[in-house]
């Protein structure tokens, strides 16, 4: 099976952004990056699909060349090859433009099943998976916590507010991976050595214009200073009083 995992390199959780002088872009000086949390699950699920059904795993990213570090790790875990769609403007790219660029590449690659993270933890759009599938006319199941794949079809379980849904779908399909789907493996020394010989292509692409632009960035309003209302169970009446009479939430 022709399997693709789409991944994104994002600032680490602890990154403290500064607003650049223009008031609408992020000063990323000193940022460290990592593979988006859920994309790790996508890579793992892609490798598991290959182990079960045979075939080849391509890891695809739209981003800076520096993302080859994260791609190399995916290759060490068992993916076969990787492609970077080199994008100096990745940080400004909107959901539609990202999805259309990826969709075109996925078609060229002949993908049959595509794994993505449920959401990228920098932009929190959760849009690109279902957007890509719709552009390509494919099936898509989002927030998947359990998956069974077979030739030409699959069954996925997704978590919602009301419970767990079971969905049957035809391939080709895009699956977005949620926590619980798998436990990502670590890359071993053998894999790391093997990954050095695996190809990472850096390619250009035909740009798709953004429909979204940042007009302004601000820091969230500072919460008003809180206070310690008491110690131990003896403080409960003071807390109740504050919740009823100040915050008026009780």
């Amino acid at each position, binding site marked *: 099976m022709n399997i693709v995992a789409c991944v994104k390199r994002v600032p680490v959780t602890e990154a403290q952004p500064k607003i650049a002088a223009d008031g609408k872009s992020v000063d990323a000086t000193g940022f460290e990056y990592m593979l988006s949390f859920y994309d790790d699950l996508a890579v793992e699920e892609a490798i598991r699909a290959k182990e079960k059904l045979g075939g080849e795993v391509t890891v695809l990213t739209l981003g800076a060349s520096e993302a080859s570090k994260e791609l190399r790790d995916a290759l060490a875990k068992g993916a076969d090859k990787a492609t970077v769609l080199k994008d100096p403007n990745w940080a400004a790219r909107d959901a539609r433009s990202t999805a259309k660029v990826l969709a075109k590449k996925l078609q060229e690659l002949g993908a049959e099943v595509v794994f993505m993270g449920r959401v990228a933890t920098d932009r929190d759009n959760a849009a690109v998976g279902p957007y890509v599938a719709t552009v390509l006319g494919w099936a898509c199941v989002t927030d998947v916590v359990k998956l069974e794949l077979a030739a030409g079809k699959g069954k996925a379980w997704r978590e919602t507010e009301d419970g767990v849904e079971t969905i049957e779908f035809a391939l080709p399909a895009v699956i977005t991976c949620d926590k619980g789907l798998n436990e990502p493996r670590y890359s071993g020394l053998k894999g790391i050595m093997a990954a050095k010989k695996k190809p990472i292509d850096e390619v250009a692409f035909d740009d798709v214009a953004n429909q979204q632009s940042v007009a302004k960035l601000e820091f969230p309003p500072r919460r008003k200073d809180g206070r310690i209302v008491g*110690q131990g169970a003896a403080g409960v009446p003071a807390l109740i009083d504050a919740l009823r009479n100040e915050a008026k939430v009780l």
Partner: protein
Amino acid sequence: MTTIVVFVEHSKGQARRASLEALGAAKAAGARVVAAVEGSDAQAVASTLGRFGAERVAVFAGDGRVSADRSARDLAALVREEGATACFAAATSSGKSLMPRIAATLDSTLHSDCTGLDLTGGAPKVVRPWLAGKLIATLESSAPVLCATLRPNTFAVQEGSGSAEIVAKPSSSDLKALLVSIEAKTGGKLDVKEAPIVVSGGRGMKAPEHFALIEELAAAFGNAAVGASRAVVDAGWRPHAEQVGQTGKTVSPQLYIAVGISGAIQHLAGMRTAKTIVAINKDADAPIFKVADYGLVGDAFEIVPALTAAVKAIRAQR
């Protein structure tokens, strides 16, 4: 006057509150509001939506089959038919699954998890958290249709005395994915994302069985959901569905009570927009106290049962 199509979710004959908030946001923007509801049981819900701002309700009764790709196609067709310039859904599992597909069908980008809207003139603008809520972005859209999901518990429900025209719509066929079953949550528990009150527990609860204390406090409020920190979800004490934080759910309840949670950046990303935050922790230096409005320092095993009893007493008086 512009038209906005709003996708309204419902269960057990009731519209989801987050969907009513989306209707309210569309109404507040001064638009003509067209609601869309799906399902063979949608008629009863449809008749209530006029009160919440809808002027017209499109009912897709369907054929009993549920498929996100079909819903998206039907909704996008409705947007075109109504000449709508915007389409909203709540940022719930369904809304987040559906709206990118509607946007793709309309060749428009998607603005996810919006907390503000400005459609008063010029290019439409949306406000939303950026980089896990560390920043707030105002975004300008040049999309043909402004497609947006709206964060629950953020926009006001606009209840009035209006009534809506109800129109039946045919559903399309050709389904690429099909819902075959739903395993409903036990006991009709509230979802952490939508509940007006969230009581979350962390590693300070010491063992999974002690979450009974958290559940009892949530039950005492009557309208609270149980949440959890990443540490206790990773340890297998609680299901991922309850996790609040950057790799879990983002919540904006009226009241958020963090018990035995230190307040790591990853957790703050998921709850810092709560209206009122209470922290209960034995470590007076825990970072959670920096974002909390009210803090209680001490042993959760003493404080939580006392708080549960106090909340019960208040509720019993009503």
